[in-house]
């Protein structure tokens, strides 16, 4: 069976995939066609013929993979720090890591996902009056999204700063928890 051409791209080594994404992100200039057209040119020059659609699908797949990978890394780091801070409570640390993963993964997509997550809860209760009340809450949740994103961004900055300094102190962990509790 002939392999799908976006599968061909997905099966390339990681560094090669990064190169293709870099080509696709290259801005258009007087000397460069830029974007997907440029990436297709470069791939063709390397003897790899793919369609625009396959490249586009590969690009979406790669970005999504990166989003979840980044969120997973952040979750693992948060759980590890929590374990180091409170070794007796490993289960809580894992739950904290999952919490950070979910928050980070959703943040990297779009605010509509926050609202969608709330909306899914409503599927379990079809009472019309309750739905109307929840709709009001959803509207409010939508307005809160921007604020939530800022708070998560702040939490991410604290984690990043701690990573750069080699780990978290009890004080930075307390600051992080404070930021997250505000969610």
């Amino acid at each position: 069976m002939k392999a799908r051409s976006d599968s061909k791209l997905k099966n390339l080594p990681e560094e090669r995939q990064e190169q293709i994404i870099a080509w696709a992100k290259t801005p258009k200039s007087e000397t460069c066609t830029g974007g997907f057209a440029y990436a297709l040119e470069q791939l063709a020059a390397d003897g790899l013929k793919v369609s625009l659609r396959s490249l586009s699908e590969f690009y979406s797949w790669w970005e999504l993979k990166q989003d979840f990978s980044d969120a997973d890394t952040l979750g693992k780091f948060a759980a590890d720090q929590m374990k180091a801070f409170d070794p007796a409570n490993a289960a809580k640390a894992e739950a904290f890591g999952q919490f950070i993963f979910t928050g980070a993964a959703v943040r990297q997509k779009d605010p509509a996902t926050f609202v969608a997550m709330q909306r899914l809860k409503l599927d379990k209760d079809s009472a019309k009056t309750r739905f109307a009340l929840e709709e009001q809450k959803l509207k409010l949740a939508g307005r809160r999204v921007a604020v939530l994103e800022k708070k998560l961004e702040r939490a991410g900055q604290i984690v990043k700063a701690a990573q750069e300094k080699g780990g978290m102190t009890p004080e930075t962990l307390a600051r992080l928890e404070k930021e997250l509790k505000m969610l």
Partner: protein
Amino acid sequence: MPKINKPDMPLLRAKIREVLAFAPTRKFTEAMILDAANRLVPVPVALDDVRRAIEWNLGSGFVDYVFNRDEDRDEWFLTDRGLAKEGIK
């Protein structure tokens, strides 16, 4: 009346496993899977489509779920069989 494109269900079932494989030790909400599926599949994917695809994967033993009591929702992950299907050791 315009023709409405429906997602290819075998493709969607595979895409859902692919999404869960991005972070194989994590659990994913339906909303996260729905959003990711819409980024990977070229036609609009509805929540019902995602649920049917998840249920197929559940029936095939590729995915399982835990109920998150605090959030009142199911959260999904790949089983050992699902990990093997995705080529993850």
